[in-house]
């Protein structure tokens, strides 16, 4: 597989207070593929994901060194507008986090912030993205209802629609199915697989079977180090590092 990188991470280290959580990570994340970050809990998967859209910097005591280039642009450059970086990436969190407003307003929130005012256009944006996230049929008659009334699985797809509505290039998923029932999980997985033709998808998961189902590219993290990365078939069929092998066979988890 030839890699056309969309995101290039170069020598990224992240420190929480004195503790080094990510150690010198260098990896290219391929364009329009699903890259899955796997590894035991506490290995820094989520930290790596959050560093991609700069959600780490408001936290206390976080220090970051190294570079992350998105489309060749250094996102930690002081001149880079943080809102611009985040707009490029839609985030799905572990538990879907709907905003305290109606279903419609949840999806329209992003576009409104970025300057869309025309009611008709907004209607279309909301409808299109709810369809894209596979939620439209379930909510089209109750767009004015509070988003909190949806089930957790529906809320996760709402969050997907909301993220897509700002027209990002990248979708980040932080264990996006961990709070969902099997059917909703499957639904979200299917959406992600469909979306990869237009978007670069980066998903963190601790479920190996899920990684096998959706991954084109795999990055294995262990204790804050990037142990191995490469095309999914290769890694799963023939891991080169003994630690990867141990993780894949369930010896470390």
């Amino acid at each position: 597989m030839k890699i056309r990188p969309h995101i290039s991470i170069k020598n990224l280290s992240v420190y929480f207070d004195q503790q080094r959580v990510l150690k010198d990570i260098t990896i290219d994340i391929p364009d329009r593929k699903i890259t899955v970050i796997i590894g035991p809990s506490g290995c820094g998967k989520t930290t790596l994901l959050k560093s991609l859209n700069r959600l780490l910097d408001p936290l206390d005591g976080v220090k970051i060194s190294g570079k992350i280039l998105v489309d060749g642009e250094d996102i930690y450059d002081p001149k880079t507008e943080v809102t611009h970086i985040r707009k490029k990436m839609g985030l799905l969190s572990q538990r879907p986090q709907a905003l305290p407003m109606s279903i419609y307003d949840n999806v329209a929130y992003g576009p409104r912030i970025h300057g869309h005012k025309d009611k008709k256009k907004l209607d279309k944006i909301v409808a299109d993205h709810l369809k894209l996230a596979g939620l439209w049929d379930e909510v089209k008659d109750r767009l004015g209802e509070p988003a909190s009334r949806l089930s957790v699985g529906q809320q996760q797809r709402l969050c997907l629609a909301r993220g897509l509505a700002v027209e990002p290039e990248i979708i980040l998923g932080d264990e996006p199915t961990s709070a969902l029932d099997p059917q909703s999980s499957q639904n979200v997985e299917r959406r992600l697989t469909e979306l990869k033709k237009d978007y670069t998808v980066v998903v963190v998961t601790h479920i190996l079977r899920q990684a096998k189902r959706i991954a084109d590219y795999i990055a294995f993290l262990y204790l804050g180090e990037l142990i191995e990365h490469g095309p999914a078939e290769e890694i799963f069929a023939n891991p080169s590092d003994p630690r990867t092998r141990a993780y894949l066979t369930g010896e470390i988890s």
Partner: protein
Amino acid sequence: MTLPLTKRRSIHRKVEEGVFRVLMVASMVIVVGCLVLIVGTIIWKGLPALSLSMITQTPKGGYYLGREGGILNAIMGSLYLASGATLLALMFSLPVVLFINLYNKKNSRLAEWTRFSFDVLWGIPSIVYGAFGFIVMIFLGLRASLLAGIFTVALLEFPIMSRAMDEVIRLVPRSLLDASYSLGATRLETALKVVVRQCLPGILTAVLIAFGRGIGDAASVLFTAGFTDRLPTSLFQPAATLPLAIFFQLGTPFPEVQERAYASAAVLTVMILLISLLARGLIKKSTKHIIK
């Protein structure tokens, strides 16, 4: 005969449960009883003096000794004063609280000091605010007026409102902020469109508490708002207030005027009751979209 240990333990736990239940119920009865007694006394003693003219007319024969007319001057004065002060306090309170919660690191020193100073300010007696307001007033060459009263009461309400708001805004989960940030929203957009919405019931409650405190306070307006028999027409004229009306009427030697003090107190209580009910309706409505 001794019972087996588990049995004894279970009886012990049942007794414990029962005793504490009785204590809790007793506390509740005492608190609710006091409330009923206070309201009952006010109404019972004020009822003979309560009439329509009480709430539709201004005093005749002076607020101190007058036995005729009503307290419309104080009703209007109190409403203007407390509304103005609450609005003013809100204008400063909300930005401060949003700032310490969203623009600072969690548990930042600045935020902690601000919270500490709210707590201290909360504990300062209102007569001190009154005296402070009076000094500032003299310094600025103002006389006792509705405006000076509004400033002073706003000062009194500010820490109360801020601390109550802070408690709810602090509880906004990090993930909710992240959800908004990750869509490319700025902190300000997140604060105004997400945090304020999520915390609206708490914010309204804070406003209500502060309003209640402001409308019922006598000491802070004693020197600053003054008192008058006329209806308030200008920010720069003295304004009457209900707590002071009660204070003056109670201070007279005539029982029939003292009765009017209780009637005034009843009016104030009913006003607070109505405003609370209205606010509760609003708060209930505003919880619709809250994310739990």
